Structure formats: structure tokens, C-alpha cells
């Protein structure tokens, strides 16, 4: 009889300015400021806005309102719902967010009506993409272009390009739901808005300015997006302070800032983390393309498009040929070297499907050629068969781990959070399974610790208990955009263009 051991990992610390450390993103930023903050220059982030006269007006009002800060929601959980201290130099990002008058572009009412009244769905989506892309392009060609362009979608356009069943917050449609719900009970994915978002991001990639798509529900408490289908969701719009936190954090990262980074032990080898995933092409056939998401501890993300995926005959999981696995990894590592001047000492590969023997061969060869001696190949299946239950209404604590055997461990990345004094999620959480198919790191604890820390490297949200490590979380966002990038075009490798 084997015995399974439970353990608990403490919440990993994040590093902020001047070596300040905190487990929580929002309190860390408030107390210390972003990790790349320096007093030598007073920073100003130049924002551009594209929208209708109405969305531009309302968004502008809200941006001004945020300067002074948004008070915390009235709650007995102050660690979960802190107020937003403000978007000025005195705020958590220690910089100001400015919209220059030359950087505001209004879509004419006639253009908006043309999109809205267009009968054909595909044409409507492409018209909308074109309308926004043209304005972003104009802004990009200015002498001093904005660093991030906010695309403030008017309600009419959202309703036209979507067939909404649920209401996604901001730029990150149904993030929570996708990570937490099983396929059979996931809400019908809203393909149209995904198409619009993906196509718009893909179309603006070449312009080299990251965009932030924002819905009126973020900045206008009275905004209502009509839904075409009956909605059963009990999901509520987040409180205003949380919306402000997430919005400005995404803007800061997209503008080139580094809000926080992982705390790494000096004694550990410098490591980089690569996620490998597959996405379906535009033509809707099951043809799959691979992509790699490479993240270092500083939070720099590199995105690469790889070769086609093959399907295993027996378990139908996608995998790469040895040659494609080799060149994807090789290119990823070379890009890393260009950034850092050297190869990492250790490479950790995360993958949602099994490492196929052919694929492994390709990965190993690329790793050997880059003279990397330590590698860990971790397969994280979409769902864990093994779960744990406490005797109480709250699920097990985030950080609870159960070693199944030498090769497998489950880890609760969503769960009860001591710091929040609650379980900040819907649905009974499912743990992650880490299935090591190659493990050069002798200590499981280190692998778990890093995985937990990687769940906090999500600049789209400021609540730290992400379900998936960024390597895998980025995969879906990236696939939705890369599928619009034509073959033969090398897409911008910087993650900030994809989130």
C-alpha cells in the first residue's frame, strides 16, 4: 500500500521596486511600486484612444476619475477588494497615464452605423477590424506615437460582432470560466467576439503598438450590453476598484513596464519556462499549428509560431515531428539568447498534451545544441482525475499538494486563500496535475514552487491566484491571434501584443 503525502507550499513572494516583497500584487505595488521603477526619470505613459464620440467621452471621464483613486468596495474582505490608489505618479504604478489630444481618434457615427447595419456577419467583423486598424495605423505613424492604444468599443459594435451569452470583463473574455469549468459545462464560447478580438490584434501586430480593448462596462456603471440569448450566469461585474487595478496594470505592462517579477533563489540555476501548445487554424479544419510561449522570471514573454501539429493515432493528442520540435525550441532559445546574451542554464517545458517520443527527441536535441544540461518536461493535462476534499464549505488551500508517485503530483493553484480569508472563485476547484516526463530537477518542491509562482505572472489580472501558470495561460490567447497571422509572416514575438 502506497501512501500519499500531503504538503502545503506557502504563497510565493513577488518582487517589486527597491527589493520590496509581498505575496499580493496590489499591496506590493501600493507599498513599493513596480519592479522597474526608478526615480531617475519621471515616467509618463502616452495613451491613444480610438472609439466613438460617446465611448471616448465616457472613457475620458473615467480616466480622470481614476487619477484620484477609486475607493474600495464596501466589504469585510479588505484584502480581496482593496481600493485603487490612483493613476498618477503617486499611484501604485508610480507614473502618470496621459492621453494627448493628438492621440484621440473618433470613429464617425456613419462608419459605426455602416458596421452595425451590415447584414453579413463576417463582413461586419472585418469592417469593424478595418475601422479600428486604420485609426491605430494613423496613430502609429505619428512622430511621437502613443505607447498603447485603447480601443473603446461602442456597445452597438460589441452587439454586432458578438452573439453574447456572457459578459467578459475587459480584454479577457471569461478567463475564469475557461480555466475552471469542464468542457461539458462551459458556456458556449462566443466565437464572433473572439474572432473580432483575435483579428484586430493580429491586424495591429504589424503596427508595433499594443492595443487594449475595453468594453463600456469597465468604465461606465450604467452601460448595458444587450445579450441575444438568455443569460443564466450569476457572474457579476467586478467592483470598480478591481476594474481600475486590472486595466492600469495591463496598460503598464503593454507600454513596456514590468510591474513585478518572480523571486528567485540566488542558488538556483537561471531557468526559463517554455509552454508548447497547439491551436486550430482559421479554416476550421482540425489542422493544428504549434506555438511556443517562453517566459523568464522577469516576466518577459516571447511568442513563436511553429510548425504543424500531427495527431497521434491512438490517443488523438497533437504532437510535433522531431524536426519541428527541434526548430521551435531552437528558435525560442536563440531569441532568449538575443535578449539575455546567453542561454539559460535550465529549461522547463510545460505542455497540455503528452510529450510524444518523437517530440521529446526534437526538444532534447535543441536543448543539447544550446548546451543546456538541466531540463524538465512537465505534462499538465487539462484536468486532474485526483481531487481532495476538506470537511467544510471551503475547498483545500491554494498550495496544497499531493504526491501521487515519482512522476506525478497534484497541486491546488485555485483554492482557499489564507490572505483573502476566502475562496475567491466560483465552482469547486480542480487541481493541476504535474506529470514529469523528464525530470532533471531532483526536488519536486522546487517544481511546485515555480509552478505556483508562474500562476502569479499574469499581467491581465491583479488578483494573484491564477489557475494556470503563465506558460499555459498565454497559450490560448496566443492561438486566438496567431491563427489570423498568415503563413510565412513572422509575428511579433513580444507577449504584450497578445494579452
Amino acid at each position: 500500500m502506497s501512501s500519499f503525502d500531503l504538503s502545503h507550499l506557502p504563497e510565493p513572494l513577488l518582487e517589486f521596486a527597491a527589493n520590496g516583497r509581498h505575496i499580493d500584487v496590489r499591496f506590493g505595488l501600493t507599498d513599493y511600486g513596480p519592479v522597474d521603477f526608478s526615480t531617475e526619470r519621471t515616467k509618463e505613459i502616452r495613451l491613444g484612444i480610438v472609439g466613438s464620440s460617446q465611448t471616448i467621452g465616457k472613457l475620458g471621464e473615467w480616466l480622470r476619475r481614476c487619477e484620484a483613486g477609486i475607493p474600495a468596495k464596501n466589504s469585510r474582505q479588505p484584502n480581496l477588494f482593496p481600493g485603487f490608489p490612483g493613476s498618477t505618479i503617486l499611484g501604485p504604478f508610480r507614473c502618470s497615464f496621459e492621453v494627448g489630444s493628438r492621440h484621440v481618434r473618433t470613429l464617425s457615427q456613419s462608419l459605426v452605423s455602416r458596421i452595425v447595419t451590415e447584414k453579413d456577419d463576417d463582413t461586419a467583423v472585418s469592417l469593424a477590424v478595418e475601422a479600428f486598424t486604420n485609426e491605430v495605423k494613423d496613430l502609429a505613424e505619428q512622430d511621437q506615437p502613443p505607447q498603447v492604444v485603447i480601443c473603446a468599443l461602442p456597445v452597438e459594435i460589441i452587439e454586432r460582432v458578438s452573439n453574447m451569452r456572457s459578459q467578459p470583463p475587459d480584454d479577457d473574455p471569461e478567463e475564469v470560466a475557461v480555466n475552471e469549468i469542464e468542457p461539458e459545462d462551459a458556456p458556449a464560447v462566443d466565437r464572433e467576439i473572439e474572432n473580432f478580438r483575435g483579428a484586430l490584434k493580429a491586424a495591429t501586430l504589424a503596427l508595433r503598438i499594443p492595443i487594449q480593448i475595453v468594453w463600456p462596462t469597465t468604465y461606465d456603471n450604467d452601460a448595458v450590453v444587450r445579450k441575444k440569448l438568455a443569460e443564466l450566469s450569476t457572474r457579476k461585474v467586478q467592483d470598480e476598484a478591481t476594474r481600475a487595478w486590472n486595466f492600469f496594470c495591463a496598460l503598464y505592462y503593454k507600454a513596456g513596464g514590468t510591474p513585478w517579477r518572480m523571486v528567485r533563489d540566488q542558488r538556483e540555476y537561471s531557468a526559463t519556462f517554455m509552454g508548447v501548445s497547439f491551436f486550430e487554424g482559421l479554416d476550421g479544419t482540425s489542422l493544428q499549428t504549434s506555438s511556443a510561449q517562453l517566459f523568464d522570471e522577469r516576466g518577459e514573454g516571447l511568442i513563436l509560431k511553429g510548425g504543424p501539429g500531427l495527431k497521434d493515432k491512438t490517443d488523438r493528442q497533437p504532437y510535433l515531428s522531431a524536426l519541428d520540435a527541434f526548430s521551435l525550441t531552437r528558435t525560442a532559445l536563440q531569441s532568449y539568447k538575443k535578449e539575455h546574451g546567453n542561454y539559460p542554464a535550465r529549461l522547463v517545458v510545460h505542455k497540455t498534451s503528452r510529450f510524444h517520443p518523437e517530440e521529446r527527441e526534437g526538444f532534447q536535441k535543441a536543448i543539447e545544441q544550446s548546451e543546456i544540461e538541466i531540463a524538465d518536461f512537465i505534462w499538465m493535462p487539462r484536468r486532474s482525475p485526483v481531487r481532495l476534499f476538506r470537511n467544510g464549505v471551503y475547498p483545500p488551500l491554494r498550495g496544497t499538494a499531493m504526491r501521487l508517485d515519482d512522476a506525478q503530483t497534484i497541486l491546488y493553484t485555485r483554492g482557499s486563500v489564507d490572505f483573502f480569508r476566502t475562496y475567491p472563485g466560483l465552482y469547486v476547484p480542480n487541481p493541476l496535475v504535474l506529470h514529469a516526463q523528464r525530470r532533471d530537477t531532483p526536488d519536486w518542491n522546487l517544481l511546485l514552487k515555480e509552478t505556483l509562482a508562474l500562476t502569479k505572472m499574469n499581467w491581465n489580472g491583479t488578483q494573484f491566484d491564477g489557475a494556470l501558470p503563465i506558460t499555459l495561460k498565454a497559450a490560448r490567447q496566443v492561438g486566438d491571434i496567431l491563427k489570423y497571422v498568415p503563413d510565412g509572416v513572422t509575428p511579433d514575438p513580444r507577449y504584450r501584443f497578445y494579452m
Partner: protein
Amino acid sequence: MKKLSEQQIIGERGVHLLGGRLLSVGLSFQPNGPLDAGIDGFLELRDPQSGEVRAQWITAQVKTQKEGRFTEETDESFSYLCRQEDLDYWLGSNVPVVLFVARLSDERIFWKALHNWFADADHRRRRKVVFDKTKDALNETALPGLAATVASFSAPGRVVPSTRIAEALNSNLLKVSFPAKTHVAETSLSYSEVREALVERYQSVPVDWILRGKRIYSFRDISMPPFRDVIEEGSEETVDTVEWSESDGDDTRRLFVELLNKTLSEMVREPLAYWRGGRYLFWKLGRGKRSRGYSYRSFEKNTSRDVVKSYKRKDDDKPSYFRHDAFHANFVRLAGEWYLAVEPTYHFTSDGYHESRYASERMSGIKRLETNQSVRGHMGMWTAFLVRQPDLLRDDPLVFTTVPALGLAFGVPDDLWRENEDEDEKTRMEKAQLELL
């Protein structure tokens, strides 16, 4: 002549009793000096495992009684009336003040965080503290409460020592044992031909077999009817099951899992049915019935559960849909042993068998409602169902045994947290309790 009063001695003994108790649970305690004006000492939060301290203080006021009953003492509670000047002093503190009430005769100590208690205007007006003798007892389980006192008093964002309450967690794993021998026989028929031949001769066709190549495998003796007629005569033999179960080949492993699944389906075919679309087993509803109950011994007690439940429309007596308890069976090999990982789920039907048109909406609805406790309860039912008592009349090919609960030094103070939830969340928790247990 100088004197020390009896009450001074009693007070000092109370302070010593408190200090000893706090030190024994790993907190530090500094008694105050001679300049005490209503605060007897300071305790500092400390992480009992790492020993880490972060200058997080609580001030302590001890009221000590030698013996006898406290004011208004019952089996559950007692009260303490504060003087207005004490109250003003305590509530003006820049650190949380905890009132400890100690009784020397039985060495019991109770505690209350005063700023929390007196946040209520009515309490403040009456100046009375009511102690709950269970919840407010000072022992190891009070530690999370003391940490919460600091967290709620100071500015948000303070990281206090994490909650350490020893807990036992249950997993959804059941250990599986299976026969040492697997029966094999040659056949010239295809899978559907075997099935057809069996249906022709027997109405109820067993499902606990698989076909690979031209061979039938099963844990049952296939030289006997009904299989006797579909196999090549004389080809039957047995093989050691370990050849499959310990194989490292993915292909063989998959076939073995298929055999386990089929064997399980056969064992439970009377009360449960398999739903191919969702790949789960669910409770059948008897003909003409509207619900089905199941009584069993759960983790702590005898209980019962509606394993099939009907839901009616408003103003209509006819059931509009049924909810059936169901589970996905995942056979997994861990550390060289086989386990069944039970994943509880639900099957929604319009008529007791066929899936309801609104099944996916109902599923999202119930998943939003469920709490950890509801799923644990559901799991408890399946455990009781699958872990059968030995029965001489029955020879189960698969035998499931429970995996003992696992201990963890970190837990969750449910009651403490629940108090801070907003009303919607409290309602959901209560509803889940009523609906799903």
C-alpha cells in the same frame, strides 16, 4: 504595615495562567510592568513552524476569577460587564485589545477581540461582552482567530502567520483489486458479431469483456455460457493479469483500463446505467417513480440521499426534469497500484433516462451552487456504494477499498471566514447545504 490584597494575588495568577497558555501554543507573551492602567501584557503573533515574527501585537487585558460561576453563566455562555472608563481606554488603543477572562479553579480561559465585539453599536451601549464557552475558549484552535484580529484591525494587506489547523483531507481515490487471472479465448467473430450472437441467445448481455485481435478477454470464465457459444472451442486459457496491469506500453494499459471499466459497468448494471455521451454512470429511476433514495453510512454518520430527484415546474404537478447523481470512473495507476478516481457529476433527464434539452444549463447552475462540502458529500455516497460489504452470495471481480484520509497541518477556519462573506455568498452556501446534501 504593607499589604498585598488577595485580589492582587489572584490577578497575578491569572496573568501567569494566560502567559503559560499562550507560550504553550507557540505565541510570545510579555506581561506589563507596574505602570499598568488596564492592559496586562502584550502577545506577539508568531509562525509556530518557522518561528517567524513580524511585530504584530495584540494587547491583553486579563480578568481573573478564583472560582465559582461567571456572571450569567450557563453551559454555553457567560457575560462580562465593562466599566465605561475601561471601554474608552481599550477602544482608543492603536493595537487590538483582547479581553481574556480566566478562572483559576478549572484553569479555563476565554477571549474576545474587543474592537470586533464593540463594532456593534448595541453592544457598545450595553457595555456587555457575551462569551461563547466553545467558540471563545483559548486553546490551539484560537490561533487563527487571534491572527484575524490583527489582520482586521490594521490596514488591509497585512500578511499574518498562516492558519495552521491540523486537518484530514479525503481524496476521491479508491484502491482497486482485481482477479490475478484473466480469461482469454479465441474467436473468429468481430465485436458486433459477438454481441449479436449473445443477444440472440440471451436477453441480458454481459458487458465485462473486451475483444483484441481475435481474442476475447474477461475476468469471468468465458468457457461457460453465454460465451461458450462465441469462442473457438478448446482455445480458452488464463493469463496472469499482471502482464497487462504492470505493462508499460500505453496501448496495453489502455486496454486494461477498458476491461476495468467494462467490469465495473457490469457490476453496477442493476442500479446504474452508463451514459455514452457524457461517459459517466448514473442512477437509474425505477419505472413510474419520481425519485430514488439511497441510504448509506457516510464519513461520520448514517445518512441518505436523493440519488434521483425530480423538479417540478411552477403551477404544475408533473416533473419537468430529473437530476441523477452520476460519476466519471477514472482508473489510474499510481506508484504501481491501481486506483479508481471517482469524479462526481450529474445527469439531467427529461424522462428518467434521456438527457434533458437544458442539461448543460442545469449543469452550470448546479456547479455554481456546489461547495466543497457538497461534492464531498456526493463523493461519500459513491464511496459507500462502491466499497461493498463482503457478501457470500456475490463474487465481485473488482474490490474497492477506501484510501485513508490524509493529514495536513494547514487548514481553513470555516466559521471565521464565513462571517465575512457577503450576503449573496452566505445564501449560496446555505442553499448548497439544503439542495445538495
